[in-house]
């Protein structure tokens, strides 16, 4: 059994409820009302939010963003992990404004940092975009408190990236290891499903290096999977659109 010096990490995951009807074009997002939070918001815990497949620029994205602002009053997360498909469609300045800067305006103004990973709808050039904190890299690591985070580019898992991942994970000693990337290694969703080839390539490394949590998007649903080989997998790709009946 493994145990951690760290007591806990607060992890927020936001998703539209499955029973919500789909938005229609032109429909306005509804202001988010506070919802009771049951979370061990320990004073010194690392608090963050996670969004995936967010960059639609459509009302559901704005609604989720409003929820994040609302919840932040009760759960003061300081940064957000982005699981890819950050900007759908074109990548003009107008697209960045409408699909990122506007929806998360309040959070950005409040000093919340976003750490992006790349999805298949993203142009890797996004890695140079200041608010995504990628420092021009398609894959990178950073840490907060006693948690090491690893943002991967699952659209292009080159042998160089695999070697980098193995090395970075082996050097991470802070206690928690959280990897996030776009394509899920496990998923029961019907639209895409799990990426078996990707799983075969990197899961042995994740297991060997004792990664605790893996977060992915791609499927526009929310899934929390039973731990696989000791790793907790989440799929969260519904921060910009929910795909009904996908599970």
């Amino acid at each position: 059994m493994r145990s951690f010096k760290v007591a806990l990490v607060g992890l927020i995951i936001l998703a539209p409820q499955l029973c919500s009807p789909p938005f229609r074009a032109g429909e306005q997002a509804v202001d988010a009302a506070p919802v009771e939070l049951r979370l061990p918001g320990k004073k010194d815990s690392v608090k963050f939010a996670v969004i995936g497949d967010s960059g639609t620029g459509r009302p559901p994205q704005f609604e989720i963003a409003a929820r994040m602002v609302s919840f932040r009053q009760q759960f003061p997360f300081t940064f957000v992990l982005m699981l890819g498909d950050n900007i759908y469609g074109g990548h003009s300045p107008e697209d960045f404004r409408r699909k990122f800067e506007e929806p998360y305006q309040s959070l950005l103004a409040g000093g919340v940092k976003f750490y992006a990973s790349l999805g298949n709808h993203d142009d890797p050039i996004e890695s140079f975009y200041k608010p995504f904190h990628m420092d021009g890299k398609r894959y990178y690591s950073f840490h907060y408190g006693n948690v090491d985070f690893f943002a991967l580019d699952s659209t292009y898992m080159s042998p160089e990236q695999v070697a980098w991942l193995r090395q970075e994970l082996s050097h991470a000693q802070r206690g928690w290891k959280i990897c996030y990337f776009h394509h899920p290694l496990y998923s029961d969703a019907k639209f895409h499903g799990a990426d078996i080839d990707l799983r075969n390539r990197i899961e042995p490394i994740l297991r060997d290096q004792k990664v605790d949590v893996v977060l992915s998007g791609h499927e526009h649903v929310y899934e929390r999977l039973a731990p696989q080989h000791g790793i907790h997998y989440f799929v969260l790709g519904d921060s910009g659109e929910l795909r009904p009946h996908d599970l």
Partner: protein
Amino acid sequence: MRHSALLFFALVLCAGQDAPPPAQARPAPAARLAAGLIHEFQTKVEAYAVVHREAEKQVGPLKPGSTAARIGRHQRELAKAIRRLRRNAAQGDIFTPRIAAEIRSLTGTAVSGPRGARVEKSLRRAEPVQFHVVVNRSYPSGTPLQSVPPTLLLYLPELQSELEYRIVGDTLILRDTAANLVVDFMRQAIPGV
């Protein structure tokens, strides 16, 4: 009124240790290319990288921490400069028939070997894309970049950092990542796709 589901997790993990996974066989794909063809391919790729760097000198580097406007401007200017420097570029300049044949052999091995089923499934689930591919033309704005199965990347020869492989239908593309340009392509690159 729409509601958001909010899920919180206090992650206090006491994860059990599993038996170590079987070691993955690591083929040495590049070694499978005939030595002469490796050299020829890498020389051509390096020659392209020199052109890219020359173009970048003309337009200036893109620095991390840029604005969206700066990123878009840089991409357009870089593509324009590369097109100017490679105005006579044509399909097959890098993927010559001999190199293309060898690469088909490598991808054929990747999809027909023990990993074949996985690779094929990965390709099917990667949100396949289709468009008319033309050298020196931009990868279409708004079209997803289909992910390349890791096993295929393991079999394909290494590229300079300015370039990446991408898949469009059965076509393998060399894409300039910063300029978003199609540098060269070869059709029927992956058997069975």
